């Protein structure tokens, strides 16, 4: 799949923002006043900024409100509802915490649940697609959720919890790569089923046109996969390894904390870039772009 910067930034940063809102809602840390103000500002900047970034890849962003209508079938529509609900509930909870100095505990739990549900619905947009076998697996929601929660814990300053969650997210990440690498072959879809011309060998002899097209640009990103192994190592080291090591240093201050976040975000964006760049859409078979 084409790794569009708007979608990479959207899923990375809104995941972090909603992850932070989960911990704020749970009262980890139980902040009020100015400290709460800065943490909520950060969470909303990430979550809302991410959502705004996602509208940049729309052909008609002015019609975006229509996306609230089809929640009965569409995960994208459900994501729209859940994200707005989470932001509104946590907005009320955050307002009380910042300006009234009180924490409306049950409302916080409800907001945290909505924030988790938002990240889950985002992940289901990808996991539901049978056309991309690498994404069509239970580990996809687990991967996006575990990363979001680990990043949220990190931003919320929950050091020991963050270290544990990052280690867990790293394990899920590696498993997602492992299962994903064999997913296309396991899906049973190949050029023979795509054309019905099997069981003998089928070879894409001539494409429909000499130039490129929307399908080739959107679904058949192959250049980036050349360095996939190195990029996986970078994502694993920066996104999970270095932060865990830094978190385990006793008495780490804000400087180390900032370094930790910077490293995690770099690794996270690398991982998310790979999430798209490595994903093979089955339509590539018709163009002979996938190993049969």
């Amino acid at each position, binding site marked *: *799949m084409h790794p569009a910067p708007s979608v990479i930034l959207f899923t990375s940063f809104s995941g972090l923002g909603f992850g932070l809102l989960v911990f704020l809602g749970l009262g980890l840390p139980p902040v009020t006043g100015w400290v709460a103000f800065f943490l909520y500002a950060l969470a909303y900047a990430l979550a809302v900024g991410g959502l705004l970034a996602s509208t940049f*890849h*729309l*052909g*008609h*962003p002015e*019609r*975006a409100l*229509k*996306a*609230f*209508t*089809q929640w*009965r*079938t*569409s*995960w*994208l*529509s459900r994501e*729209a509802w859940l994200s707005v609900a989470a932001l509104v509930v946590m907005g009320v909870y955050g307002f009380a915490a910042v300006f009234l100095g009180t924490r409306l505990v049950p409302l916080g739990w409800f907001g945290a649940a909505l924030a988790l549900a938002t990240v889950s619905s985002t992940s289901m*947009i990808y996991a*539901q*697609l*049978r*056309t*991309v076998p690498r994404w069509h697996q239970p580990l996809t929601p687990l991967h996006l959720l575990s990363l979001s929660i680990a990043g949220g814990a990190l931003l919320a300053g929950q050091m020991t919890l963050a270290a544990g969650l990052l280690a867990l997210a790293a394990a899920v990440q590696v498993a997602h790569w492992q299962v994903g690498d064999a997913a296309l072959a396991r*899906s*049973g*879809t190949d*050029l023979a*089923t*795509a*054309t*019905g*011309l099997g069981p*003998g*060998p*089928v*070879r*894409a*002899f*001539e*494409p*429909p*046109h000499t*130039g*490129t*097209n*929307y*399908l080739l640009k*959107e*679904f058949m990103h192959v250049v980036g996969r050349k360095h996939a192994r190195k990029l996986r190592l970078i994502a694993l080291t920066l996104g999970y390894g270095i932060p865990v090591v830094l978190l385990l240093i006793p008495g780490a201050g804000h400087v180390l904390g900032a370094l930790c976040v910077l490293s995690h975000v770099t690794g996270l964006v690398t991982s998310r870039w790979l999430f798209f760049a490595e994903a093979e*859409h*089955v*339509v590539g078979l*018709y*163009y002979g772009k996938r190993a049969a």
Partner: protein
Amino acid sequence: MTELPASTQKKLGLVIDLDTCVGCHACVISCKGWNTENYGAPLSDQDPYGADPTGTFLNRVHSYEITPEDGPAQLVHFPKSCLHCEEAPCVTVCPTGASYKRAEDGIVLVNESACIGCGLCAWACPYGAREMDAAEGVMKKCTLCVDRIYNENLPEEDREPACVRTCPAGARHFGDLGDPDSAVSQLVADRGGMDLMPEQGTKPVNKYLPPRPKQDCAEEFDVLAPLLKPVAEDTKGFLGWLDKALEKL
């Protein structure tokens, strides 16, 4: 509404004969022409006369080489457009309701004025049947020429999809695949019509007729062979003398 209809009164669709298609791309051109001049946003081209031309097409013809176990290699031309699936994954993912499947005839359409151009329907389609128009920012797909097939302003013989009407080889057939007695259903039954990517669970309405086996033609190749055999070895007369004379030289 992006909920799929429980059933449709008709299942209008195409039957494409891979044995007959000659790969002339006439269907591609007539489709582009009709759907640029008629219903919905035109199918735009980018840099059409430049170094890197691209454009929106609703129908494209691939070519594949197959090698049957006992027989010579064959080239199969393979037109591909929307298959108007019964379980259309492109419809249910749409967040705005722009994508829908008609209960009356099963045609899958896009309401372009409600399309936000998110592209998720194209992601959900395994066949590459949907293309985002780069000029309009909305999703384009085969309409089964919905503005031809019911159009009483056209002569009756023209009330079929442009690709079917134009095919010079008669490789494309249009009809109701929900009616077992229709000509297209009979054709599918006779020729072993097949689904593309059945494992994706989309239940496509369009069917493809496989190329007929070619090995029974092998005898035919020998029809002219006796005439092409070398002339008799034991030559006589003038030619015999000439043959011997030339040998001795």
